């Protein structure tokens, strides 16, 4: 762990206790089995709001605590450990960030307090195909009277079903593939012409595809500047990447702990299997990889808080390294547990399914390796 402040340490302990009591994997399983479309329990979400987690990034003047991204990461690591389902990432991390990065005073005053008290759930609608490709935005926003008319489709919108306000990346100029000509809009999820289709995925999380069929919004719906949305979008995505990387680190760390515990208790050939060097070394290598990934995730969050110049590189690094470790760890979780890991009754499978789903959010390893290379001039 990074050297934490007293406040951060308290929050971490509180989060650890709360999540394991109120929102453990057993609760995740219950939600999955219940078939709730939103994929989270209302009381879990209400609990997080009560704890003030939705206001971690929001300045005090808008009702939050303004504690910053490392603190947010600490919480997300704990929710990640237990696969806790909630709109915390979509709304309190990504939605709040978009408003903070691009919102006018009026927009921030209107929406940030609602993010904090949970009465609004925000999410970012950016991708339009199977792969994360923010510059490929094609959804059109045409002038219509004093406002705009949006037409197109967004895919895999995180918490797209539960969200009440969508931050939509639309094209107002140029063509897909160009970063110029993108504009961000705040669109109420219940606006006329918005059709949401909940996605049933191997993971249980509230993804939705969202169709916009001539959805009309006013000029005041523009977040940031017209045609110049890319900078806000990229800054928002980077913060989203670092945050989701913290969640991934937590998921992988729990998978590691489960595996380590199994290595110490499962007996075969008359001894615990952790005494076999092949497995001891595998555990050592996974642990080393985890420590390295942790440094990247915490480094990215600290870099954001410090408003450093290398935020983009650090966030790609964090998402890539957390992704690589979670990929490897989720496979080893199943492999080392053997047959029991293959059963639905055991939790291991949930971690494997979550691992692949989060890998694709906000860019997978390949996306971020490529971006890292570009940022390094090759």
């Amino acid at each position, binding site marked *: *762990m*990074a*050297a934490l402040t007293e406040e951060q340490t308290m929050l971490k302990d509180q989060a650890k206790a709360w999540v394991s009591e109120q929102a453990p994997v057993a609760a995740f399983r219950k939600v999955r089995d219940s078939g709730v479309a939103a994929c989270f329990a209302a009381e879990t979400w209400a609990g997080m709001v009560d704890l003030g987690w939705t206001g971690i990034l929001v300045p005090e003047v808008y009702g939050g605590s303004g504690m910053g991204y490392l603190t947010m990461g600490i919480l997300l690591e704990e929710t990640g450990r237990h696969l806790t389902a909630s709109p915390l990432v979509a709304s309190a991390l990504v939605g709040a960030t978009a408003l903070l990065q691009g919102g006018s005073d009026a927009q921030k005053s209107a929406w940030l307090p609602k993010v904090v008290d949970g009465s609004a759930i925000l999410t970012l609608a950016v991708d339009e195909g199977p792969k994360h490709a923010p510059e490929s935005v094609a959804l059109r926003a045409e002038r219509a009277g004093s406002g705009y008319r949006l037409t197109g489709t967004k895919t895999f919108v995180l918490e797209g079903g539960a969200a009440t306000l969508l931050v939509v990346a639309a094209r107002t100029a140029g063509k897909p593939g160009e970063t110029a000509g993108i504009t961000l809009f705040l669109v109420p999820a219940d606006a006329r012409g918005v059709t949401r289709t909940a996605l049933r995925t191997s993971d249980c999380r509230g993804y939705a595809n969202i169709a916009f069929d001539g959805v009309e919004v006013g000029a005041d719906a523009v977040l940031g500047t017209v045609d110049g949305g890319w900078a806000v979008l990229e800054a928002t995505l980077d913060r989203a990447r670092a945050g989701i990387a913290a969640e991934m680190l937590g998921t992988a760390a729990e998978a590691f702990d489960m595996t*380590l515990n199994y*290595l*110490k208790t499962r007996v075969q050939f008359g*001894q*615990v299997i*952790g*005494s*076999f*060097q092949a497995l*001891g*070394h595998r*555990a*050592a*290598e996974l*642990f*080393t990889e985890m*420590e*390295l*990934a*942790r*440094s*990247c995730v*915490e*480094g990215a969050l600290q870099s954001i808080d410090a408003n450093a110049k290398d935020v983009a590189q650090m966030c790609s*690094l964090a998402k*890539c*390294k957390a992704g690589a470790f979670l990929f490897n760890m989720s496979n080893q979780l199943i492999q080392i547990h053997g047959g029991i890991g293959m059963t639905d009754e055991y939790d291991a499978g949930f971690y494997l399914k979550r691992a692949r789903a989060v890998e694709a959010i906000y860019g997978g390893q*390949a996306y971020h*390796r*490529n971006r*890292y*290379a*570009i940022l*390094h*001039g*090759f």
Partner: protein
Amino acid sequence: MAEARDQLDTFRAEARAWLEQNFPKSLVGRAGEYMVVEGDVRIEGDALAWRQRLGEKGWGTPTWPREYGGGGLTQLEARVLQEEMAAVGAFNPIPMLAGMGVTMVGPTILEYGTEDQKQRHLPGIARGEVRWCLGYSEPNAGSDLASLATKAEDKGDYWEINGQKIWTSGADISDWCGALVRTDSKVAKRDGISFVMLTMHQPGVRTRPIKLISGASPFCETFFDNARAEKTDLLGKLNDGWTVGKRLLQHERASQTGGNPAGGGRAEPLQDMAKRYVGTDDEGRLADPDLRVRLANHLMSAKAHGLTLSRIAAEARGKQQVTAAASILKNSATSVAQTRSELTLEIMGHQGVGWDGDEFSGEEIQTVRTWLFGKAMSIYGGSYEVQNNIISKNILGLPETTQKG
């Protein structure tokens, strides 16, 4: 906090002024000549004067206590000193000149040595005048170090040493040796080992350099034939050498965690070298997309390693700690450095297999030598596998592996 920062600023000004007065400008940019890992570098002229001034000030071993020739600085001050030295192109040749003295033997003497041993041995190391080597491995005791057989016989006021050591770095140019020897062969193998210090300038000690695949000979075989170690030069308790020796290895590991595994700060970035050899496409991307991916991966791993070094230092909050985490860092540093060498070789293509001759640039030949010698990184100081044993047992708490020993 503010007060501490003020103190640090005061120290920074002091260090800057002292360097301004004492570091010979003629040595700027010549660190490479004096910081080589192997070989008996002759120190003369300005370099000699610089070593003497640095040694007198104690800043060659900045955090050692002043009474033993150190600088008495805190970790933070030492870091400031390092920054100030880098800023004016100064360098510290003393750790190299002292062989294993500064990085390993010294810290272990500070921890386990008697007052007399500290007084006798530390100042010479701190001045960079006395070079140390380590007698650990033997032909039949490599990773299984505890099987070592070099014998020390009690001769009343001294120990008589007989046996053979191998992979003794710089033994042929060292003045003193710290050696693990067997002082009791009737007990379990780890319980009969002692750590003794002996001078290399005696008839009973003979060394023979070993030529490596890289062409260099940084290691020796060292033969003890009725060699003599004084009773006053037993480090730690009798038969407690395994503890002392393991502690020293932690210091060694800490010194091998690679502050900058991606290469010296002034070296050309690997991606620029790659573009030079391989070329770019219309968008300025490396023309070989396969290499490009692996290069990006490597840069990320190097960055992750650097971040981990800083994180572990920050968590220790300025205290110098040598912990089991060193095993993680050593393995990570090793894999980053070895991957870097492999990628460099690949980038150079045919030019990356040159041995000597005018058809190859100095950089190309150096790359080959570095690549070859780099294979030792995952073997020395406790192999990659030994570090994994340490991680699984000491950090993760997994049971002792089923191998014997």
